[in-house]
């Protein structure tokens, strides 16, 4: 059996990325994700990897682009305001069909906001964070163990589909410490990537990594092709967890830290005889629409628990085609809902006082 260690969420991301074969990290410090960079600074030089503190977030994401173009896995990490800065680079990665891992340990916003946790980048990152038509894979871990497991998966799928992937945590997940069993070392990336710019040795045509297309026809064709790829991903890569959904009449939808808070509230509500369960999206893009549509056939109402102004609630309403009322329990600005607050919302819905 593999040994269990005690790690911060941010450290688990860093170690899991290394174990998955990532040897190139570029970043710029920002609370509450700095431990990712600190861990990489300590570890990368010992294993022949590269840790580089760039002069800015923008420089860091473009360094990721450079390494990715050579067919090597690369990553960067930041927190909300820093991700805004990286948006241009993420769009260029998507436009050049390059794989990359971007970690976003969210804090309150907008603007400089604050250093306490939030989930308010939901809309920003699930719609393709940057200009142009594109998506990125978005993973929302809910425990330190899952942060480790999803980091490897995000790197692997970014490679498989040649697109950026984001691990979307919040400050609490990044800072909390939990026991974790680290994944086995792996290298899912291969040395022979036919698209990588590694030198032709005069044996093959040039691989050109680029997002500029002089012909509108060609650019249109690429956009359509890319979205065909996205459609396939939406069918096969959505992940979610169901908790006590078999007999549920009320379905909570929450991800990350608010899913943990909700789980506590569900345990309390069940003691009071209220049939409530939870559907926890683990991928936010692709969003588990199928699972929500199926849940809408069984339950009477939904309750979204979020640390934003109800951004995921809109995705839930779309997924279920507004066939059931969707209520919202939310805190913002760095505040976390308590289990009691969630319980009060559950009770209100159970009593028929649905605010939605």
């Amino acid at each position, binding site marked *: 059996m593999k040994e269990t260690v005690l790690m911060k969420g941010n450290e688990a991301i860093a170690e899991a990325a290394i174990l998955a074969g990532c040897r190139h990290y570029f970043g710029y410090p920002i609370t*509450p994700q700095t431990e990712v960079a600190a861990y990489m600074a300590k570890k990368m030089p010992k294993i022949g990897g590269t840790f580089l503190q760039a002069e800015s977030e923008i420089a860091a994401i473009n360094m990721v682009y450079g390494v990715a173009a050579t067919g090597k896995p690369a990553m960067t990490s930041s927190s909300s305001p820093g991700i805004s800065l990286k948006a241009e680079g993420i769009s260029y990665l998507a436009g050049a069909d390059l794989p990359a891992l971007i970690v976003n340990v969210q804090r309150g916003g907008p603007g400089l906001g604050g250093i306490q946790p939030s989930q308010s980048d939901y809309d920003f990152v699930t719609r393709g964070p940057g200009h142009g038509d594109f998506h990125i894979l978005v993973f929302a871990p809910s425990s330190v163990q899952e942060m480790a497991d999803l980091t490897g998966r995000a790197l692997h799928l970014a490679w498989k589909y040649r697109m950026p992937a984001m691990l979307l945590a919040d*400050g609490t997940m990044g800072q909390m410490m939990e026991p974790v069993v680290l994944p086995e070392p792996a290298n899912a990336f291969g040395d022979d990537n036919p698209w990588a710019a590694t030198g032709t040795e005069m044996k093959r045509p040039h691989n050109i990594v680029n997002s500029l297309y002089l012909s509108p026809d060609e650019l249109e064709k690429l956009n359509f092709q890319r979205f065909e790829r996205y459609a396939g991903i939406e069918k096969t890569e959505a992940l979610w967890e169901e908790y006590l959904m078999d007999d549920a009449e009320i379905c909570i939808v929450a991800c990350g830290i608010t899913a943990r808070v909700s789980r506590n509230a569900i345990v309390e509500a069940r003691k009071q005889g209220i049939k409530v369960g939870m559907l926890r999206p683990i991928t936010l893009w692709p969003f588990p629409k199928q699972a929500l549509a199926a849940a809408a056939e069984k339950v009477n109402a939904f309750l979204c628990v979020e640390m934003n102004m109800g951004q995921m609630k809109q995705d839930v309403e779309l997924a279920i085609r507004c066939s059931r009322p969707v209520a919202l329990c939310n805190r913002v600005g760095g505040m976390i809902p*308590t*289990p009691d607050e969630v319980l009060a919302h559950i009770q209100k819905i159970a009593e028929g006082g649905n605010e939605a």
Partner: protein
Amino acid sequence: MNYKRLTLFAGHYGSGKTNIALNYALWLRRQGLKVTVADLDIVNPYFRTKDGEAQLREAGIRLISSEYANSNVDLPALPGEVYSLLDDRSAHGVIDVGGDDRGALALGRYVPAIREEGDYEMLFVLNRSRPLTRTVDDALEVFYEIEAACALPFTAIVNNTNLGPLTSAGDVIAGQRFAEEVSARTGLPVKMSCGARKLGDELYNKVSNFFPIDIMQLYYMEKEGTSLGKTNL
């Protein structure tokens, strides 16, 4: 167990310094002493000594911490009040130093006064379950980096090997053996081995100077006894 007027807890990031500092302060208080806790952590943004403020106040223990702790301001500032801990020798002080050499740097400015008084213990808190201090060599790397950063040599080692809520008596015992290896290399004694009070029956005779922990850090957004299920990906 002996104690000095000032007890400093330093060590690797996430080794459990804050939790031990809180429990040690309560233990000193139970000896009938006047106790002050100073939070010198300028690194950690969340889960700080300030989270235990109510419990300390209830026990009649004074807490000195940055007025920005647990706020939305990311300011690595220390309150001027810390000097009162050094000047007022009628109180016993527990100093929670920030993690690693980066955190210990802030201690440096108080070291001349601490050395001059000479009535202190500088404790190296060690959790073998942390991935960057799993070998003696790795632990010693952190040990010497901290000493170099704050210019205050350690005087003893504290075994705080734990896996949070999953900690077994066996983990604490394995940690004690690990701490003894670090002790052999540094020539410093192992002052105590920490563990949840409920593990006491299994540990009292097996580890030297078992120090029971009463306040465990529970994440405030969760209730005791519930946790997230494991998902198969």
